[in-house]
């Protein structure tokens, strides 16, 4: 099973668990599995159209899935997936 690392700000939605195992074989299915098991995560990961929010990045190893196959990126048993919140802002 692949491992997914939950970032600190979202751990309150995963019972304070930092690492979870997922059975899914693609990133899209991983997100489905995750939001099914932890419904409160959904609004933090997905927009109203069900797409990954623009302020959320998903990495496989050190690679952004946007530079791989997005949701179709294959997940293997030894894959480490990280949810990486975008940290940004400005003064007005």
């Amino acid at each position, binding site marked *: 099973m692949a491992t997914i*690392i939950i*970032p*600190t*700000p*979202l*751990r*309150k939605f995963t019972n304070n668990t*930092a690492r979870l195992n997922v059975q899914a074989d693609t990133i899209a299915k991983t997100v489905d599995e995750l939001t099914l098991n932890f419904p409160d995560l959904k609004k*933090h990961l997905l927009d109203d159209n069900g797409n990954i929010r623009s*302020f959320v*990045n998903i*990495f496989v190893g*050190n690679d*952004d899935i946007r530079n791989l196959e997005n949701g179709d990126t294959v997940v293997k048993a030894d894959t480490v997936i*990280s949810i*990486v*919140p*975008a*940290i*940004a*802002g*400005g*003064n*007005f």
Partner: protein
Amino acid sequence: MIVLETDVQKLIVQEAVESYPNECCGFLYGNEDSNGRRIITLARVVTNVKDGDKRRRFEISPHDYLEAERYAEEQQIELLGVYHSHPDHPAIPSEHDRAAAQPFFSYIIISVNNKEPGAIRSWRLNDDWQFEEENNHLIAY
């Protein structure tokens, strides 16, 4: 309540002044007690990678974020938030800050006006995705 230790406060002030007129940014680490009181014991500076006008925007790269999480795990401390500066603007989160904000994190904002450090205030998202100010205690130095 959030408490900034002296060295943290000094670093944030120094970075805000030295980065002026651009925005500075970094991560905040420490611990939270059972009453929800956060003690920030360490701040780490991060490069503002925003493409474009850094005087009014900041952005932290995903790789720096991943490194920040790894550091917290290695050091057995909690990643509790982010600081950034508002050059020539008050230490109040903007709509842009709110849109990108993450739950749980404390967002410390320092105002810096013409290289003079101003107020340091801390904000956290509530369940309605609105910022609420945290009772912010600065240790004098």
